[in-house]
């Protein structure tokens, strides 16, 4: 949606990021995750390499779904090379989600609060404002070469025909000087802060903060899996990051590792 804001211009200011990051700034790319994958494969890109594009022509989300990617929003992929096993590295998606919530808190007016939706979406006023797409790069021996943390944040624009209602920071009251560069800078600071906390203290503080921000905890939700749809109460997030669903049909507590969550009206 175009809201009549002036074009962001051809040369936004260069983001100022903490030294832990190495910025690869691109005008336009197919998908930042694909570009990040290429940088890992071809250039052995190091941990902290951040691929930022002002526009994506083939932006995608989970299951190859299109991610609408016009200029004015934030699109990035961060190359992470954690030394821990993959089963722990997936926790970085939750680290990123709460870091983005903190970042949104710093650029938005008071009283506007970001919430998380399992597993890695961000909501403002019940509408989707950001999403993550995490992908691994595995070697042929099965070891993890890198984890790619793809992120899209609706800053100026949002799709009106999305499968889940969407919004943008501007539509939710962000000041006119809040642009994708400001969000990128805030996210990078908070991601570094939360990553260090995760490295020092493990998943526990991340999980607690995530649960504090989680929409629908203790409420009835619907979870759509590829081959079935479940109804129940969203109880918890387990140590592995799975959603714990108390099923309505009286079955055991079900741990969900992949699926789409919908909330009751």
């Amino acid at each position, binding site marked *: 949606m175009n809201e009549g804001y002036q074009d962001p211009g051809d040369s936004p200011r260069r983001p100022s990021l903490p030294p832990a990051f190495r910025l690869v700034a691109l005008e336009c790319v197919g998908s930042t995750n694909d570009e990040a994958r290429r940088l890992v494969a071809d250039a052995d890109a190091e941990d902290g390499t951040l691929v930022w594009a002002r526009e994506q022509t083939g932006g995608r989300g989970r299951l*190859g779904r299109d991610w609408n990617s016009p200029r004015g929003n934030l699109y990035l992929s961060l190359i992470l090379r954690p030394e821990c*096993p993959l089963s722990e590295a997936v926790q970085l998606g939750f680290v990123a989600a709460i870091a983005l919530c903190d970042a949104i808190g710093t650029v938005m007016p008071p009283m506007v609060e970001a919430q998380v939706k399992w597993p890695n979406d961000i909501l403002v006023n019940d509408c989707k404002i950001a999403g993550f797409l995490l992908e691994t790069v595995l*070697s042929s021996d099965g*070891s993890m070469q890198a984890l790619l943390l793809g992120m899209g944040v609706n800053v100026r624009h949002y799709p009106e025909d999305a499968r889940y209602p969407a919004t943008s920071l501007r539509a939710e009251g962000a000041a006119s000087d809040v642009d994708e560069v400001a969000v990128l800078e805030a996210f990078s600071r908070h991601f570094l802060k939360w990553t260090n906390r995760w*490295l020092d203290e493990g998943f526990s503080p991340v999980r607690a903060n995530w649960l504090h921000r989680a929409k629908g905890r203790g409420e009835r939700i619907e979870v759509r899996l590829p081959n079935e749809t479940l109804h129940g109460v969203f109880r918890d997030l387990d140590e592995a990051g799975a959603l714990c669903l108390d099923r309505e049909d009286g079955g055991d507590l079900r741990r969900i590792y*992949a699926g789409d969550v919908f909330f009751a009206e």
Partner: protein
Amino acid sequence: MAEFELDEDLVKRLSQLLKDADLSEIEYEAGGQRIRVARQIHQSVSAPMPAAAPVASAHLNAAPAPSAESSEPVPAGAVTSPMVGTIYLAAEPNAPAFVQVGDSVREGQTLVIVEAMKVMNPLPAPRAGTVTRIFVSDGQPVEFGEPLLVVE
């Protein structure tokens, strides 16, 4: 056939042998009974990021994972799931599958995607060969270590 008694000491000894010799699997057969012990050998990537504090779920790296094998043997050449998750046979719904039975694949080529906690894990072929069996269907939940397909 006599009932298969799991000899824990034997499994432990095999596990130790496995570790000492730095092998990925070892099989012991006697009197019509067979025990296979396998583990994943992980090369950790060197990176500036220090290791995370350990949590309970570190199953991917779990060294020797004894699996006394009596019922369903993991077939030779099987590619197994590195995690609990959901299998996708194609990049997106309705797209052609990454591979089909009879396809020849090159090492590193994507075979399937396993999704867990929204992390998409494209599994690369461990070696060049031919896909001879596919055990899973699109959207199916899989367990850690479950055989997904065979590349021979």
